[in-house]
Every structure is written in structure tokens, then in C-alpha cells.
């Protein structure tokens, strides 16, 4: 049985905005599944439906075989969520946040204290435990929220842009924690705008565009969508202006090279990135920078 199964899922908000249109995919146990998409593409709507926070208006979604709309109680005991742009209470300490969340989710005082310490040590928060969240940096606050989300040992964890505001070290700590979780069988469904994050973390990914599933597969499969398997960077000789192209055929590459030589511009070849694939799939323009 798949952990998440989505079939023809649709969501039209009461105001008439159609956020999701017939989305179908599944998530396997123990994998990291990334949802990518532009702002307003429907990623958070999809995640909130799966996390039983929002009612779908069409299709069906099941988590652990339970329908999220009809049997949400069964789903809720096995999941946890870190919502997008969540914030801790400024006048409450880091430790109070994590310990109280453990107790709200049913742990005894002793278990909550033990679990809080374990999580806060894992995220290097233990030394900051008594500080008010107002006195913590943005990255440390985000880690407090992550500890809250992880407090209940969920089987399926939803992370909505979990590394926003984190420094590179903090991001890697989150990635390491996600990897540790998946090794112990936890399934992680996350949305992100960071392509490097999706590239490093995801076993599979889905790209949502205008409420529809635009791509489903692995990172390598996504990169293959770019065409000839490389990106061409053309720079003006004076360093002003940079153009990045993703040619689809050898003929196109040859034409680009010939044109660049004629114009006296420098050409370099790079393997395609997930960002190239993303832009290709969602139909935006390829990077075209002018310094």
C-alpha cells in the first residue's frame, strides 16, 4: 500500500478560484517526495488537503489507505505538519514550545522532557533552550518549529518550505534530519522553492503548474526533459550580459556556437540543473541576465 495516493484531486475555493485540477500521484513509504511549483501553483493547497486541513472539492486522496476527507481522525494520529511561514510565540522559550507540543500530543511530562531534549540536541538548540524565541535568530526559530513538528514521531511528515530563513549549516541539518527520518521508515512530503534542496533530498518529485501536475518522476528524469542534456552559457567578451540556453538538438548547439564565435562571445557548456528542467516544464523563459 502506498503512503499517499491521490486520484483526480481538485480544489476550487469558495470564492471560485480553481487551485487544483485533477492531480494524481502516489508517494511510497520511506521516500522524500518534493512538490515544486511557482508561487500560487497549488503546492500548499495540495499539502493542506493531504494533511486534513483543507477539504477537497473533487477526486480522492488517501493517506495510509484512509480517505483524508472522510476519515481524517485516522490520518491525523500518524502525521505531523510544519506549515509554511509558521512562527513561534516570541515570549515563550524554545524549550517550552517543544515540551508543550509533546504534551499536547499526549506524552507524559517525563517523556515530553526526554523527547524535547533529544530533538533539541539533534538540532543544536539545547544550549538555547531557555531563551525566549524573540531572542533567537530566524534560523533557530525555524528549528524550534521543526522540533515541534517532529515531537510526535510521525510516520508521514509534511514540511511546507521548511528551510526558509535557514543558513547553509541550518539547511544541511534539516536535510540530514530528513534523511535520518526516511532511513527509519518515515515518509516526508515537502514543498520547496530551493531547487538544490529538491535535487539533494528528493527520491521523486512532482511539479505543479497552475493547479495541474506538470511532471512526476525522479530528478534525473526531470533533467532529461531539458533536451540535449546540457545548458549553454554565453557571455559577452566584456563580461556584461549573460545568456543561458537549453538547446534541444546537436544542430541547435552548433548554431549557438557559430553565432557566439561570430559575435566574439564566450561559450561554456554545463550539465543541466533541476532549475533548468523546472523552467522548461513550467514554461517560463530561460535565464537571461544583463549585468
Amino acid at each position, binding site marked *: 500500500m502506498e503512503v499517499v495516493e491521490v486520484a483526480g484531486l481538485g480544489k476550487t475555493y469558495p470564492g471560485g478560484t480553481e487551485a487544483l485540477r485533477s492531480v494524481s500521484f502516489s508517494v511510497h513509504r520511506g521516500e522524500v517526495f518534493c512538490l515544486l511549483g511557482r508561487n500560487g501553483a497549488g503546492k500548499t493547497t495540495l499539502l493542506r488537503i493531504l*494533511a486534513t*486541513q*483543507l477539504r477537497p472539492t473533487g477526486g480522492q486522496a488517501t493517506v495510509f489507505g484512509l480517505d483524508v476527507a472522510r476519515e*481524517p481522525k485516522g490520518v491525523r494520529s500518524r502525521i505531523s*505538519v510544519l506549515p509554511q511561514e509558521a512562527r513561534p510565540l516570541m*515570549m515563550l522559550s524554545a524549550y517550552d514550545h517543544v515540551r508543550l507540543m509533546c504534551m*499536547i*500530543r499526549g506524552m507524559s511530562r517525563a517523556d515530553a522532557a526526554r523527547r524535547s531534549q533529544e530533538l533539541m540536541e539533534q538540532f543544536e538548540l539545547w544550549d538555547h533552550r531557555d531563551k525566549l524565541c524573540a531572542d533567537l535568530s530566524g534560523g533557530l526559530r525555524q528549528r524550534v518549529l521543526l522540533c515541534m513538528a517532529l515531537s510526535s514521531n510521525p510516520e508521514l511528515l509534511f514540511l511546507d518550505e521548511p528551510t526558509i530563513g535557514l543558513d547553509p549549516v541550518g539547511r544541511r541539518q534539516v536535510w540530514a534530519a530528513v534523511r535520518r527520518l526516511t532511513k527509519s521508515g518515515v515518509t516526508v512530503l515537502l514543498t520547496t522553492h530551493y531547487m538544490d534542496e529538491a535535487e539533494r533530498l528528493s527520491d521523486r518529485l512532482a511539479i505543479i503548474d497552475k493547479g495541474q501536475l506538470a511532471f512526476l518522476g525522479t530528478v534525473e528524469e526531470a533533467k532529461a526533459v531539458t533536451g540535449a542534456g546540457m545548458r549553454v552559457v554565453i557571455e559577452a567578451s566584456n563580461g556584461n550580459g549573460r545568456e543561458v540556453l537549453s538547446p534541444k538538438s546537436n544542430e541547435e548547439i552548433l548554431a549557438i556556437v557559430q553565432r557566439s564565435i561570430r559575435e566574439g562571445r564566450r561559450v561554456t557548456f554545463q550539465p543541466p540543473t533541476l532549475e533548468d528542467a523546472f523552467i522548461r516544464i513550467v514554461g517560463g523563459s530561460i535565464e537571461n541576465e544583463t549585468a
Partner: protein
Amino acid sequence: MRTRLREILYIGIFDSLPLVRDPMMLILLSLISFLPVFFLFLFAGINAALPALVGAIILTLGFSSLAVAQSVYFYKHWFRFQDMLVASPVSPISYALGLSLSTLISSAPAVVLALAVILVSNPNPVGPVEVMLVIAASILLWLSMLFVGYALGASTKNTRRANSLPQVLGFMIGFLPPVYYPLDLLPGWLQPLAMLIPSTHAAQLAKHYFGLLTVPLSPSDIIIGWAYLIGFAIAMAFITVRKAHWVDP
């Protein structure tokens, strides 16, 4: 059942802990409803201050329950704490009762202190039944304002209004109607209007049971007072049920 009680308790603690850990702020917030009492005592003496103190007890509970609107709004739209709890086994009833408990935790010290002052300073003999009836009237107003707070917090879409609406309503139930001052100070044509505000009924009943009205309430006034408070609470509960959602539509 035990699980639900634990949820209520810890949600209540989560919400009230920042205030409980900052007694200065707790005292300052309590002072808002007790400030008019101080001035009445200073300029009009104990006879005016005691009824006003009764009004302050009622309003401390009313103000704190209205403030639940801010908790509901900000936990939903700013901290996203509600979203974390929706995706957990916590029930919406536990969440609502937890936030309600928090308003009691933060207002209880001031209420208990003021009750003690009244019982000590009141020249009229007051029995436990009267004290219970005053607490019941205060709790009914607290409950009504709590429902108003939930309905406001759940339906407000604007952060500014989430902050200002409870304050405006607090002013309307607290400082305009005859809660601190006697009803008969109002012109005759304004008195029926004042009776539309539930805090007037709660204050009149409480002052009556403490023997602090110059003319005690008639049995029919007492029945009308209780009926109005109960009816208002039921009406607000109905609106809250219509407005508040645990799972977004």
C-alpha cells in the same frame, strides 16, 4: 476523556504562559479594568468604588474572553499553530476549551483579589450563595464574549482588525454601559439602550447580589437579567458555530 483534558490543559498553558511568566504585564493588563475603580475611590469614595469594583470583576473576565479573538486569528494566520494542531489528534473542542481556559488563567488572579477586597470592604452581609450567583453572572458574560471572540477571530481576514475589533468591542461593553456607574445616572431614554448590552445585565445582577444597588432589582428584573445573559450566550454560540471552521472549506 483524560487525553482531552490534558489537551485542554496544555493548550491553555501554551497560550497563557507568556503572560504568566511576565507578572508585570499580567498586573498591567488587569489594571486596565480596575483603573476607573481607583479614580472613583479617589474622587467619590468607597460607596462609589465598591459597585465599580463589582463591574471591574465582570469586565476583567469580559475583556480577557474577548481577547480570544486575537489568539484565534493569530494562531490561525500568523503563528500557524492551529494548522499544526488540525493535523494532529487534538480535537477542535479541546483547542477551543484550551484557549478559553487560558483567558481564565490570565484573569483569575485579578478577579480573586477584587472579590476578596469586596468581601472584606462590603458593609452588607454576603453569603456563599450570593458569591456563587455573582460568579455565575460573570461567567455567563465571559462565555458570551468568548463566543463573540471566536466568531470575530474566525471571520476576520485583516490583521489590523484582529487587533482593533476586540478593543472597540471591549470599550462598548465596558466603558459605555452602566457597569462602573449606576444605571440611574443615564438619561431615561438611554436606559433601554443600555439594557441591550449584556454587561449591563451582568453588572446589575452582581451589584444586586452584593447589596450595592440603591434600589434592589425586582424579581422580574432578575429573571429578565438572567434570561438575557443566557439568551445572548446561546445566540453568540450559534453564530460562532456558523463562523468557525477547524478544517478549512
